[in-house]
């Protein structure tokens, strides 16, 4: 029983980890609290719905469109909103509010077009695979596999020149610029990559449980919690945070109740912000030095 | 402000064996200096010598790794910056730090120590007193702005003043605070010669009143002109001290600055 709960949590956490990695990548590299990550997530889910359910494309094709749409939306956020703001004011608060504006606009546009009800892409009982004492549905397995693929890809990427460049950029954007790299291109790349990750998680989740216009907000909040819990300064923090969050939530739902899960999650967020803002993987710093 | 009025009983500010490490690097190493009243003390030395760090330690923005900071016989070492300021230490920052969106007048007004109207219920329940205090303060503030030649810019927002004017405004703020011990970080940098003249005269008058003036400076002619005593810092340590003339022309100082 416990093992099943952990497995469930792991698979849920796998999706959290993917979308959180996207969020963390953007936040750590560009400093933007990309509230609109939730909007990108929602766009991906609904693009999948549009092309898979409504237009009858094969799922793979629809998924590719969804992923592309996600990447494009992310890049548009940067180019059309964040960059103009940054050119005029250097305030993170202004960017945060701009990000919120993007989220608000997008989610309401989607609700306008598609309606507020939950849409499902698949119905009926799902195919399951037994693994010893635990049983995983097809989507749980897919989520886990996607997670492993993302992790492997990420670890591989870190060793490439591009990966090292991004890490350098995260630490010192000006220095990277001085060395001759085009920072605006790097930023666009980061938004594209981070949004792609959101798209992957969104598609998998949409195929599994369907969607409504507000799934993006949940995804965003879980990303933020995962990134804080795991650690902002280390990209892997998002991954660790996401997995842990999934597992802990699964156990809490079993032990306490599903209703209080959200409150519990946010209590964890607040505790980490106050007691260990650098996250589990971060180096311990005094509060005065924490960013 | 009447600069001829004497300022009595200003305690001596003293740092003893003050040390501060950042990681493995000692920014300030075993520094012991006493700053007596009625004197203008200059701190000079190359960039990175630890001068501003010393100011930050004294004013409470960072905590020392070792050593103590005393005001008279009162230990300042564990106090917070606002408590240290209330004890009479006024700070001029290297990057000035005026309140950009407030007018010059408001910048000075906000510097007057605890006023009626500062606790949130007072403007409502002690209305008459609050207004009276406000009127008095506006007069005092305008007088201070006159002193630093900014009276005609009283209603300009601080961010629209020139760097030199902002510096003068920051000094007016210190005067409004009635600071007994002034810590000035590069008061002469980036200002017009006429402004510089005003600043130097103010420093001299304030010391004559009985206050303690301590300043960090790179402009050696200013140091020679106003300082009573000079300390040379390098790599976090005091490497020389004495009368300005002697210290400035000393071999050690020249080595430290020019690497000769």
């Amino acid at each position, binding site marked *: 029983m416990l093992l099943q709960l952990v497995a469930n949590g792991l698979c849920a956490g796998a999706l959290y980890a993917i979308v959180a990695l996207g969020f963390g990548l953007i936040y750590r590299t560009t400093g933007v609290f990309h509230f609109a990550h939730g909007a990108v997530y929602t766009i991906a889910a609904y693009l999948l719905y549009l092309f898979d359910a409504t237009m009858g494309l094969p799922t793979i094709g629809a998924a590719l469109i969804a992923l592309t749409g996600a990447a494009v939306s992310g890049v548009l956020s940067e180019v059309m909103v964040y960059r103009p703001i940054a050119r005029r004011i*250097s305030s993170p608060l202004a960017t945060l509010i701009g990000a919120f504006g993007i989220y608000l606009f997008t989610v309401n546009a989607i609700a306008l077009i598609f309606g507020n009800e939950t849409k499902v892409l698949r119905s009926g009982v799902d195919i399951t695979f037994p693994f010893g004492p635990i049983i995983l549905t097809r989507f749980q397995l897919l989520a886990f596999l996607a997670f492993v693929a993302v992790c492997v890809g990420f670890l591989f990427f870190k060793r490439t020149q591009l990966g090292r460049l991004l890490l350098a950029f995260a630490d010192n954007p000006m220095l990277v610029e001085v060395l001759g790299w085009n920072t605006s291109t790097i930023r666009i790349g980061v938004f594209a990559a981070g949004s792609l990750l959101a798209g992957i998680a969104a598609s998998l989740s949409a195929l599994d449980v369907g969607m409504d216009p507000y799934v993006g907000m949940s995804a965003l909040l879980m990303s933020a919690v995962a990134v804080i819990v795991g650690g902002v300064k280390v990209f892997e923090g998002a991954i660790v945070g996401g997995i842990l969050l999934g597992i802990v939530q699964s156990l809490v739902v079993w032990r306490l109740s599903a209703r209080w899960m*959200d409150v519990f999650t946010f209590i964890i967020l607040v505790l980490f912000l106050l007691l260990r803002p650098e996250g589990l993987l971060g180096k311990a710093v005094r509060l005065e030095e924490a960013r | 402000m009447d600069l001829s009025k004497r300022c009595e009983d200003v305690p001596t500010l003293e740092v003893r064996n003050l040390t501060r490490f950042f990681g493995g690097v000692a920014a300030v190493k075993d520094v012991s200096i006493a700053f007596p009243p009625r004197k203008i003390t200059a701190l000079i030395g190359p960039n990175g010598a630890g001068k501003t760090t010393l100011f930050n330690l004294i004013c409470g923005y960072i905590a020392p790794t070792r050593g103590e900071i005393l005001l008279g016989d009162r230990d300042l070492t564990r106090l917070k910056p606002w408590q240290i300021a209330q004890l009479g230490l006024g700070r001029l*920052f290297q990057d000035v730090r005026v309140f950009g969106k407030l007018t010059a007048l408001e910048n000075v007004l906000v510097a007057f120590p605890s006023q009626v109207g500062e606790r949130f219920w007072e403007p409502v329940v002690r209305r008459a007193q609050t207004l009276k205090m406000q009127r008095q303060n506006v007069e005092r503030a305008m007088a201070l702005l006159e002193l630093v030649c900014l009276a005609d810019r009283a209603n300009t927002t601080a961010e629209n003043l020139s760097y030199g004017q902002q510096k003068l405004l920051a000094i007016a703020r210190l005067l409004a605070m009635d600071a007994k011990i002034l810590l000035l970080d590069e008061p002469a940098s980036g200002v017009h010669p006429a402004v510089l003249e005003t600043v130097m005269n103010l420093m001299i008058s304030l010391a004559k009143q009985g206050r303690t003036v301590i300043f960090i400076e790179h402009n050696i002619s200013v140091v020679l002109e106003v300082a009573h005593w000079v300390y040379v810092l390098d790599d976090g340590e005091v490497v020389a001290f004495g009368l300005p003339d002697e210290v400035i022309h000393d071999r050690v100082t020249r080595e430290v600055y020019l690497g000769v």
Partner: protein
Amino acid sequence: MNYLFHILVMIGIYVILTQSLNLVMGYTGLLSVCHAAFYGIGAYASALLMTGLGANFFVTLPVSVIVSVLLSFVVSIPSLRLKGDYFVLATLGFQAIIFGTMYNWVSFTRGPYGIPGIPIPTLFGFAFDSPASYTLLSLGLAALVVTFIYLITSSQFGRVLKAIREDEIATQALGRNTVLFKTTAFALGAGIAAIAGSLYAGYVRYIDPTSFTVAESLFLVTILAIGGSGNIQGPVVGTIILVLLPEVLRFLRIPDTIAPNIRMMLYALALILVVIYRPRGIAGEYGFE
């Protein structure tokens, strides 16, 4: 005519809400997204006392303020040490926690079922049961709040808050306990927001947690961003525009099913444009720098 009164009542309530958030955000420079939680605490405090103990509305007012202020300390004392984004996140966390508690502590707050049957506020026998009289109550309280906030912000207290907003370190160097000032401003904001909550409860006479969500907090931030903050007029301008806009839409015959979405899209667009091109908003002084 009744419709006009309704609009005026809502304007009164939202003026109180935005002016109180203005104290925290526009004057002290703290972006708080948990303001709706204090709004809700005020509403629930009054509603529970009126329905549970039969207390008079005007007696519940100071109680709801005190409860809200006490809860604000739970938020502010730990969180004010956090910088920038982290402070905003902490307030977001508290908003979610407080909402979640309102929603799930069914034995105390009746959770999603809400609290029905809140009695009409009465004062010495006079019942505010007509739209006209409630408009008077709402606008009257709003006027009192605005006067209070004007008095305290145009004095040294307000000046210190603005100084903290501009440069906290320099303000400390002037001998001010900035943490105390920030905590005070936050508490005042929370207490005044509770007044709006009580007013709302007495007006709609049925409350449930869905009026006090993160979305509502963000809506208040939107009003301040568009109308302006950091002075008295910004929030008033913002409130009037954003409360009137839905009525304009109705006038344009936009169907009720999609009107809320169109409304939010317009707000969002306005928000983005304002942040890029006019950060101080239409009539404000503070531009998030």
